[in-house]
């Protein structure tokens, strides 16, 4: 499969701290790629460069071969990269459909007098939820009334709705129980079967083994290795993350 996203030699420093010291990796279209690494390895800084929250000091990000430069989350979204943040970035007191259309609301009317097309948004959000076979009890419900797994599903559904190129999932099941984790993993698989490209950041090596096709290991601000997931054992992954095993 072709490379959807190429990250080349990204540097990012905060004052005296070099969070990324030349990180490079590739993400293939239509599969699940995982990034693993210990705390402070640079995973979340790299992800934030991909989501537009940080602008790299050096290096290049290419989507389908075309170099892109993000200076805000909006830029990344405009290029079809959606992020499901670890804290989900949901507005609890707003409804499911309002969250799914946040900042991309459908409106009707002339400029200056534009009103929300609430019916249309509710209908489409409900359709997508049904398509993804997610059991969310009504798109008109406020998000705070949903369970942890349902909230995660809403955040992922929002990503699916808008991601033309890639969905980034940051620790997608860190806060979930066993059952809900299995359900969210099943949802992620369906999303990829639907033709989307997914990048997962996870601490959970078992999950990385279960879900991903490709895994990249980060350590000390660099990507120190990458392999097809089927060719590596959980133990080897742990070794690569800690530096005990020489990397590929």
């Amino acid at each position: 499969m072709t490379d959807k996203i190429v990250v080349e030699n990204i540097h990012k420093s905060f004052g005296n701290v070099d969070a990324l010291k030349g990180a490079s990796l590739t993400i293939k279209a239509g599969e699940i790629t995982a990034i693993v690494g210990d705390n402070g390895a640079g995973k979340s800084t790299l992800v934030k460069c991909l989501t537009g929250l940080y602008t790299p000091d050096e290096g290049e990000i290419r989507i389908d071969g075309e170099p892109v430069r993000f200076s805000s989350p909006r830029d990344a979204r405009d290029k079809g990269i959606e992020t499901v943040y670890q804290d989900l970035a949901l507005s609890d007191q707003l409804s499911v459909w309002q969250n799914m259309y946040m900042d991309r609301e459908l409106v009707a009317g002339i400029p200056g007098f534009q009103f929300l097309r609430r019916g249309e948004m509710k209908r489409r959000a409900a359709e997508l939820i049904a398509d993804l076979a997610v059991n969310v009890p009504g798109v008109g419900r406020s998000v705070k009334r949903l369970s942890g797994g349902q909230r995660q599903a809403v955040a992922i559904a929002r990503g699916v709705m808008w991601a033309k190129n890639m969905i980034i999932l940051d620790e997608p099941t860190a806060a979930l129980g066993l059952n809900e984790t299995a359900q969210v993993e099943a949802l992620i698989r369906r999303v990829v079967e639907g033709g989307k490209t997914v990048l997962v950041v996870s601490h959970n090596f078992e999950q990385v083994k279960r879900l991903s096709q490709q895994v990249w290991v980060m350590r000390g601000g660099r990507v120190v290795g990458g392999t097809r997931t089927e060719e590596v054992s959980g133990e080897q992954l742990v070794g690569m993350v800690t530096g005990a095993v020489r990397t590929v």
Partner: protein
Amino acid sequence: MTTQTPTRTRPSVDEAAHAVRRSLTSEETWMKLAAPVALIVLAIVLGSINPRFLSWPSITSMLADATIPIVLALGATFAVTLAGIDLSLAATVALGSVTLATAYQAGLPLIVCCGIALLTGLAIGAINGTFIGWVRIPDFIVTLGTLSVVMGLSLIISQGKPVQIPERALTAISTANIGGIRVNFLIAIALAIVLHVVLFRTRFGTHLLAVGDNPDAAKAMGLKVPRIKLAGYMICGAMAGVGAIMLTSYIGSSQPATNTDYLLKAIAAVVLGGVSLFGGRATIYGPVIGAILLTFLQSGLTLLGVSAFYSPLMIGIVVIAAATLMRGRK
């Protein structure tokens, strides 16, 4: 969440009944109903003590008295929805009436003078919003500062002296009526309808609620949080400007001294109206009914021969009681 498509076998009648039962037991429904129910109960109680209380002239005159509290409560709703507060609200009303009078003394047409009062409110709102949104000073501190600045400005500009504005067109706002209902009250209701549409039928309104609910999530979704806060505080300031015009119209002169009663009432009406003090959840009709409720309560006490000195005491108790009902609700 299940991995299969959810199946719906329950008949819709059952579902509707279930929904009704669920909404009747939810706190949220009670919070939404609290102000209207309290208003009806109060009206019945006061009406049974003194039937004159519920006569049409008495009701319309109380509604007219509720006008300024309604308009200011509408403004305060936008600050509170952003999980903030605007302590400079009442002071801005005074400054607006002073700038209106100053423009009037300079010989400007009345409509321009009113425009200047409105601009004064917008400008104070813009200053509040800028410091809260971009400089990121807590709303409480910023508006406490502008409260003092604005209060000082009104006194400096006016030298503490009210200016008579004997213009019939202006006083007509508070005296003319349609079927007994005063024009100022109708204007307040029209403003409420416009702001309801803004809050619940536009993108901006949705974004305002989202920022009030969770600014971090809103930012992650690409919303321009400082800009939305600025707009919210400017709406609040504009309502203070409208309040200034109505106050000047009502009294027939400018009013350089700040009436803190207005601030208390506005915040009290917002709390009574079920707007979450933690931000992100609001209604427009709630604060409107809250303001009417407070005015009825005050008039009722007067009717019962209770001294006006008890009024601030009563409003204070009502605010704390309502806020207690709302505690921990997010």
